[in-house]
């Protein structure tokens, strides 16, 4: 029994099919509980007023925006090294989810920033690197869409993902250097001083868990779709060959 068994598309489909309902239900329950808890049962912040409630969407989506890219990096590496098709397709399946998470983080941030910082957008390092991450996602998806041959596309996009990761990290440090930030530090770190108060962090943890589950559910489902789309292509090619 090892993780590589799931590199077999049939096995992957059979297993994900079994856990899918649990994942959908789990993410729906966690996100609902977390957001309801956060929206109805948390106090207002003494400085931010009720806008603090936006944190329950902003932080989990930002978390997933970065981790989605990280997951794509890992699956791209697996594809480059071990050439399991499921891995490459999982990277492809994750990218649009990552884009949506990035957009949610940017939008909620802008809506929050308008009353708090007095501006929708500032060229703050964190904001800017998220915008750059968004551009990386767009390029990655565009490259997948542009190439017909699926193996070529998988190879090229995974190398782009590897190179892009290095440059994304570089950009992160470059923009840090380039402008001082308005953005607050980490909301949840081991350093207690920086942390948000417990009243906010508990529902926030629930929301983050919900977003993680939702991401896993979406990626599993979309990977299944990509596997089937691949199979359709293969079947049609075979039919044309026989005809």
């Amino acid at each position, binding site marked *: 029994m090892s993780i590589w068994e799931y590199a077999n598309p049939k096995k992957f489909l059979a297993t994900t099919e079994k856990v899918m309902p649990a994942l959908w239900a789990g993410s729906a329950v966690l996100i609902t509980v977390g957001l309801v808890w956060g929206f109805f049962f948390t106090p207002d912040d003494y400085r931010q007023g009720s806008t603090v409630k936006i944190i329950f969407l902003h932080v989990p989506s930002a978390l997933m925006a970065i981790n989605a890219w990280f997951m794509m990096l890992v699956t791209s590496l697996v594809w480059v090294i071990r050439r399991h098709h499921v891995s490459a397709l999982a990277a492809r399946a994750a990218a649009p989810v990552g884009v949506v998470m990035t957009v949610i983080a940017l939008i909620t941030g802008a809506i929050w920033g308008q009353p708090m910082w007095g501006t929708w957008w500032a060229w703050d390092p964190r904001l800017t690197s998220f915008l750059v991450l968004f551009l*990386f996602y767009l390029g990655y998806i565009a490259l997948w869409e542009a190439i017909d041959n699926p193996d070529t596309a998988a190879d090229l996009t995974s*190398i782009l993902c590897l190179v892009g990761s290095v440059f994304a990290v570089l950009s992160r440090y470059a923009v840090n250097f*380039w402008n001082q930030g308005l953005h607050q530090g980490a909301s949840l770190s081991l350093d207690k001083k920086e942390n948000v108060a417990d009243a906010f962090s508990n529902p926030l943890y629930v929301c983050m868990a919900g977003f993680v589950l939702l991401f896993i559910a979406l990626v599993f489902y979309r990977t299944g779709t990509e596997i089937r789309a691949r199979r359709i292509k293969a079947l049609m090619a075979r039919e044309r060959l026989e005809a």
Partner: protein
Amino acid sequence: MIALLLRDLKLALRAGGGFGLGLAFFLIVTVMVPFSVGPQSELLARIAPGVLWLGALLACLLSLDRLLALDWEDGSLDLLATAPLPLESTVTIKALAHWITTGLPLVMAAPVLGVLLNLPAAGFQWLVISLLLGTPALSVIGTFGAALTVGLKRGGLLMSLLVMPLYVPTLIFGSEVARRGAEGMAVQTPLLLLAGISAASIALLPFASAAVLRVNLR
């Protein structure tokens, strides 16, 4: 290797090679800037380093699609791939040829255009130095983008989308050097970081470009 470099240089210099187009584009962009932001000389002086860096970057970007596409179309890329020369060296030479025919002229034209934009006197030296250090990175990163999209019809727009985000750190540090130089501030930190990016890109990216090219030639 030298033969390949000379061949690429010759091809670029001949008619239809597109030599000088990048330069002309750089000029046009710089001339358009005052039209769009207004002719106040203080404003132009303030934005001159950034505008010149951005113009050079765009000129570099636009000349990239000729870098490999022509050799791809007439099949000489396949020959180069089967030649005894490793593909990594081939793409490095290609990037070098691109830098000599595009990057270097841009560096030399930049001070002249700096005059047009009222660049402060202290800025000229740092503008040239930063471009000299930064444009090789632009060429090498661009070669990677060109290798990614070489098999595609109308890959030009896609290539811009892929290459631009990769240019971000180079652009930030490069124009930071030029800006600080123009304002008479210390330039050492961004200069070292820019040099670091260039050196690392030149050392590592040819491997990625060659890998990508092998996939495309498969």
